[in-house]
């Protein structure tokens, strides 16, 4: 066999292996789907709670959330206009395509969307939510141990107090 061909083939195999590896490092996020990175978003929207994955709300919902940051679920989360516009543009680019409105108005909460309620309703007993270390469904990290990295895959779910099945 031609030695040059062999070298090329080897190089190609390495390249593919490297690409697979890189992919497996970046692709776990969000139950298998990749969460795009944006440092300003991660920092500003991840300081009081985990930065909720952009694809879980529609662009309409994100616009509504970002229009009311000075009175944000009982907290002042206000931003300078330039930072707010930058983060909103990122959220719009990566928003989900599912409609997340109710009664004609965009929902502000991931935890009130039809998808979220359906995914979680039968999986978590009510008493789990009363635990002080869980508090509310908005505290994704209480059950999804990878939430701060954007990882929601099933194998990373641990319900505090055990998982009754």
């Amino acid at each position, binding site marked *: 066999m031609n030695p040059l061909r062999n070298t090329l083939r080897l190089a190609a195999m390495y390249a593919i292996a490297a690409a697979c590896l890189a992919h497996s490092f970046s692709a776990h996020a969000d139950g298998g789907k990749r969460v795009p990175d944006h440092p300003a978003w991660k920092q500003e929207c991840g300081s*009081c*709670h*985990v930065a909720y994955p952009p694809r879980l709300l529609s662009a309409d919902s994100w616009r509504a959330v970002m229009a009311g940051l000075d009175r944000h*679920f*009982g*907290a*002042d*989360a*206000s931003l300078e206009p330039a930072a707010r516009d930058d983060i909103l543009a990122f959220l719009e680019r990566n928003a989900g395509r599912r409609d997340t409105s109710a009664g004609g108005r965009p929902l502000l909460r991931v935890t009130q969307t039809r998808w979220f309620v359906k995914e979680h309703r039968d999986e978590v007993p009510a008493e789990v939510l009363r635990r*002080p*270390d*869980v*508090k*509310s469904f*908005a*505290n994704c*990290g*209480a059950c999804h141990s990878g939430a701060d990295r954007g990882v929601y895959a099933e194998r990373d779910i641990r319900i505090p107090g055990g998982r009754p099945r």
Partner: protein
Amino acid sequence: MRIPPFVLAAFALAAVLPTVAATPAQFLDAFAREARQADTAFAASAARGRAFFSASHGGEWSCASCHTEKPGTPGRHAATGKAISPLAPAANPDRFTSAGKVEKWFRRNCNDVAGRACTAGEKADVLAWLLAAK
């Protein structure tokens, strides 16, 4: 001689940085100086800072609701449960090193706790107490 633009940019940045990056002691100085414009006898007090931090000011939360009464230890967000690293510079060297961050969180948290901005004197007092905490 022509100086490449990126060198100029680096010099410009270096000139701006001291006002952006700072130390906790510099923030204390600046707040105290501002407070003396209204009250020439003002001197920052850690005891007053501690009292301000633990008291509620008409709302549901005090500063301690999220940062605890012992700012050398980690806190927890009162609404979301998310962990917050210690506020005392002795326990967390990143604290009070960025003007943008300090300004932003005083604005938000004073508004949440007191329904208004904190005065320069209140900020100086709080910082005096945080600097004394281990």
